């Protein structure tokens, strides 16, 4: 089953490995962290991504202060107002209002909060599961590896969106459920990369050296192997954040994600869909927000990968 797993996450593994090769010149005399920061300062995509994310994060964190209105406040008499640049728009509601007369701008700002929470939450859960299993399977091998292998095969063979939908449908809709379900179905990539890297690291002599100096297997796995995985995990983490955000949006769009009236961009698109030919902003605005956020997260992931992956001689 190795080949499936390679194929599934192959692209990113390959790109991780690839940039390894690209970065073949060493900045001798600089610590890895400083060298990474140096490269980061020159990385265009990374800077753009960080800029976008910083702005979005500020809005997400300080939403209660930055949003002009309560995103839940309904004023039925002012429903479906267009954005201010469209005829009939009002300055008080810059991006208009939705079908319950709630301020769209405020809802989009709060939506950033939801998307980021879910992205980071789900990716963290996935990381926890995937890295733990990957480390165990890669470092200890044997029947544990077999069991994990079976789990991965099961996970991969089931269409993941269907699985998520079924789980959410059965468990019930809430932010927590969505985070856990998405997290619990997106750990394979971490696992494959962690396991692969652990297998490789396990063969390296510094692990043998640690073993020879009397470290226990657990100590070696956590103290020696894990720190070497941090960069790759970070890269996958960012990519998985993007995946989780898109997954949440898709779920909410299909009506199985974040429950109303919580402002989620996917849900807003679904709600605006019935009016999309006449109030297209209802669909376009959250869609564009989603696109910008995800593209920024992806760029961040690519950037982090370009910048941090350690230089190896071979």
């Amino acid at each position: 089953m190795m080949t499936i797993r390679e194929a599934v996450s192959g692209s990113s593994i390959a790109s991780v490995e690839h940039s390894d090769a690209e970065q073949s010149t060493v900045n001798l005399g600089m610590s890895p962290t400083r060298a990474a920061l140096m490269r980061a300062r020159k990385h265009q995509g990374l800077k753009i991504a960080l800029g976008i994310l910083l702005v979005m994060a500020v809005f997400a964190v300080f939403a209660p202060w930055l949003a002009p209105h309560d995103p839940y406040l309904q004023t039925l008499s002012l429903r479906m107002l267009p954005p201010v640049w469209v005829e009939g728009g009002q300055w008080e509601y810059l991006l208009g209002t939705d079908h319950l007369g709630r301020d769209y701008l405020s809802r989009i700002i709060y939506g950033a909060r939801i998307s980021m929470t879910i992205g980071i939450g789900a990716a963290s859960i996935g990381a926890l599961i995937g890295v733990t299993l990957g480390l165990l399977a890669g470092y200890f091998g044997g029947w544990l590896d077999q069991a994990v292998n079976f789990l991965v095969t099961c996970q991969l063979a089931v269409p993941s969106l269907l699985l998520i939908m079924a789980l959410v449908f059965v468990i019930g809709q809430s932010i927590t459920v969505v985070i856990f379900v998405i997290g619990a179905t997106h750990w394979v990539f971490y696992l494959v990369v962690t396991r692969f890297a652990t297998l490789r690291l396990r063969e390296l002599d510094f692990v043998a050296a640690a073993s020879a100096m009397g470290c226990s297997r657990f100590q070696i796995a956590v103290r020696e192997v894990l720190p070497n995985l941090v960069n790759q995990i970070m890269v996958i983490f960012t990519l998985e954040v993007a995946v989780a955000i898109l997954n949440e949006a898709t779920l909410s769009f299909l009506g199985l994600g974040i429950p109303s009236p919580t402002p989620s961009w996917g849900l807003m698109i679904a709600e605006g869909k019935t009016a999309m030919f006449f109030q297209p902003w209802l669909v376009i605005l959250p869609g564009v927000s989603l696109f910008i956020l995800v593209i920024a997260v992806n760029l961040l992931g690519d950037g982090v990968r370009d910048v941090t992956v350690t230089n190896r001689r071979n």
Partner: protein
Amino acid sequence: MSTASILDIRELSVEIPTESSTLKAVRGISLDLKRGETLGIVGESGSGKSMTALAIMNLLPPSAKRAAACINFDGNNLAQASERQLARDVRGQRIGMIFQEPMTSLNPVYSIGRQLTETMTLHRDVSAATAEARAVHLLEKVGLPDPASRLKQYPHELSGGQRQRVMIAMALMNEPELLIADEPTTALDVTIQAQILHLLRDLQQELGMSMILITHDLGVVSRAADKIAVMYAGDIVETGNTTEVLKDPRHPYTQGLLECVPGYRNGAAQRLGAIPGIVPAMTGTVQGCAFASRCPRAVDLCRTDVPPREAVSPGRYYVCHDPVTHDTAKPLTVETAAHEGAAGPSQLPKPTVLTVEQVSCTFSVRRGLFGKRKPLKALNEVSLSIEKGEILALVGESGCGKTTLSRTIMGLQSPSGGSVILNGQRIEDLPPLQRARMIQPIFQDPYSSLNPRKTIGDIIGKPLAVHRIGTKAEQRAHTHRMMELVGLPARVFNSYPDQLSGGQRQRAAIGRALIMNPEVVICDEPTSALDVSVQAQILNLLLDLRDELDLTYLFVTHNLSVVEHMADRVAVMYLGEIVECGDRDQVMSDPKHPYTRALMDSALSISPGETVPDLGLSGDFPNPINRPSGCSFHPRCPIAEQQCRDKAPASELIDTTLVKCWKAGVSVGRSGNPSINESNNNMEESAP
């Protein structure tokens, strides 16, 4: 220049742009090669020798930039030729090339036959049958048994040596006038290396080719090349007739290199010369002589002015302000005192520290995606013992089980039979922490033996932390003391391994191994990943430390000159068994086992003018999965008889040497081996 020149390179430069600057890999070198001649280009890693080779046919990586006044190949200027012209008229047609890594240089998805014949059909209008006939002919010539059936095989079915033979055959398909061999034997075991070099030499003479042989091994070049060019930091620092250059080196670097080679100065038991420091990165503008920072003879002029090219005789020149002459010749290092330990065996009986008793180790491996699990006997009833203060060298080719043995001795691998006894206790019974205080390893690759995420101080002090010895401050002080002892500057305490050179890393690894003050140190090929000048530094350090700390070494290596330099006793391993074990001088000067003999013969010492010996070994190293019956060496053995095929020999003591051979008692002269036993070609060894 002579009209017989086939290749005339003038002012060749190669630059490789990097993130921050431009690396000057080759800096305006000039070379001249005559028809039928062999030129050896020697240098350490980073000297630009491979770039030079690749630049001739413009096979450099895409980012590299090549510039040359001219690359005149038989009247054509290759520097001006377009990519298309090069591909059509030169590459594979008139110039053949062999690369270093036989394992990766053949396309894994196409058959040998296809890869051979397409070289011919691409350039010439010949039928497939003609090309095939030529391929079979060449495969036979390069010594592959049963060549016709080889055509259907794929690279992974062949061993490294066989693949390199195929590479050679491929390069010869169109009868090129020039063969460029880029480190053709570096990835191969010593016995195979000798065979391949021998083959190349024969073929070159037979076909009247010219050859450029690129290598880091002075021994190889001394035997195989007519002319030699020594490269350092992208420049040729000295060139000329092989014998002259090696016997009478003018450039301090050439001299330094020679001093670093164990055995060159006739001396086991003698401290090696060593070139301090590391090769500078050739970026930005280079002022003065590139070697100045490491040169003991350097004067101020060397640091400011580029030295001129001084011709000694036609075709022999050096680039130095202050060349070595016979009068001024002096060793590069300050101290040359012989070290005592290895000088002569001590009279007093010493206690045995480590005993290996009948240790066997069997793995079960699956071959390929569709294969079944098979047992692999990595160690077969190995017995050894090491006395306190002694250096025991464990010699063998790759795959012979020496790494498994060292891991078993350290307790990292539990044996499937037998036991390892350390100071009277079975190693499995020792708690890991206690074991760690008695025995510590030093590994081959200093790049993989240090955790790239930890600082040097952390790495060296880690055993103290694991064993909770002393306070944090004491640990720190202890670490600093150890760094001083192994010759690491205190400022690297907070550096990461990536920021250190290979030699410094190996020093850090040594420091970590010794900080617990163990009794036994297992050195697993500690210098084989290092350049020869750095190797000398490390070997010297190890010997010094042994004397100072009263250590016992198990020194695992494949390099016989290192063995000769370091060891008190030698154990030779073949296919998981110790075939010969005894006193160093005894084993090396009078090997009893035919395998030991072949090993000794294949070690190419620097002897200009001598040829590469014919070992009389047939076949390659077998895969331990298919262990031959009887004596496991019999399929390759030149003196094997029926008895050897039927029954495995037991160890017997001859003189002071333990030997495992039916015919060890029969005295065979060291040279003048019986000819190759053709019938022994049934040994189809296999891929990894």
